[in-house]
């Protein structure tokens, strides 16, 4: 029985790392599995689905880490592989869910996460600049960019000055 248990655990954990190439298939499968019909006119669809959102989020995080105005606030997070992945995945889920995609955000609320962080308006604006730079790098059209920023803008009150 112990052998069986060990074998099960072994099989389970070999599935941890997947190649990027399988992501496209994964997204379609997830949409089926989650029984969530994505509106083809939703921002999620217009942005190109989860794979495109993940690419923009990766670039956004890289921009933030290279941005000397605010990277000190993220250094501890991205110094750790597990926390980097969790942070990236939470951002992907948040944008995916907020734009009408088949995802659910599992992280803390913005208000809860930023208590005691003393984030200033200048910090927030620098972060938005880094996001806009990432969107521009992927040639996201102005309408989609503005729609996404409009979804994220209300979060400012939960992040700044807490």
């Amino acid at each position, binding site marked *: *029985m*112990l052998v069986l*248990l060990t074998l*099960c*655990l072994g099989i*389970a*954990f070999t599935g*941890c*790392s*997947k*190649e*990027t190439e399988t*992501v496209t*298939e*994964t997204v379609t*499968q*997830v949409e089926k*599995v*989650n029984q*969530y019909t994505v509106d083809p006119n939703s921002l999620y669809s217009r942005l190109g689905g*989860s794979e495109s959102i*993940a*690419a923009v989020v*990766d*670039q956004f*995080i*890289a921009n*933030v*880490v*290279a*941005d*000397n105005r605010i*990277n*000190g*606030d*993220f*250094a*501890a*997070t*991205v*110094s750790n*592989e597990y*926390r*980097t*992945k*969790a*942070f*990236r*995945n939470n951002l*992907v*889920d948040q944008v*995916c869910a907020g734009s009408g995609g*088949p*995802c*659910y955000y*599992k*992280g*803390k609320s913005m208000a809860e*996460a930023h208590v005691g*962080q003393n984030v200033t308006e200048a910090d927030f604006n620098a972060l938005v600049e880094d996001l806009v730079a990432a969107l521009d790098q992927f040639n996201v059209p102005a309408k989609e960019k503005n729609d996404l920023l409009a979804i994220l803008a209300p979060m400012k009150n939960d992040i700044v000055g807490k």
Partner: protein
Amino acid sequence: MKVLKLSVLILLLAFLGLMIYANVRPYNPSEKLPAVSMSQFTLTPITDTVQFDRVTKSIDKLSGVNAVSLKMGSNTAAVMYCPDKTSPNEVMKLLSDDGRIKVSENDLLQCGKRGCPVMGPMARIDDMIASLNFRK
């Protein structure tokens, strides 16, 4: 011996239950994204456009690099990469442009103590369940 058998049986049943749950619950596409690491570098600011293009393109082409942030005139660069496929040393080699640029990797822990704390309290458990999800 009976207690041991019973304990193993309970553990096995709990594991099987968790595995079934992991494979029937709705899940996020991000669960299937590969693990990533970040590295930050301090470098001699690049002011030459040709050199900037050459360095950016060479890093972009490197297998396993998800994102590069390198700006003209900036002394800081950041790279997100898949640790299974490449390493900070390989990125640093390309950033140095055959020794023309002085580059050093920063210790991120020394750069700041604060961290964006969005991870929920169930993050580790969610991750364990996600690792049992065999659906593509």
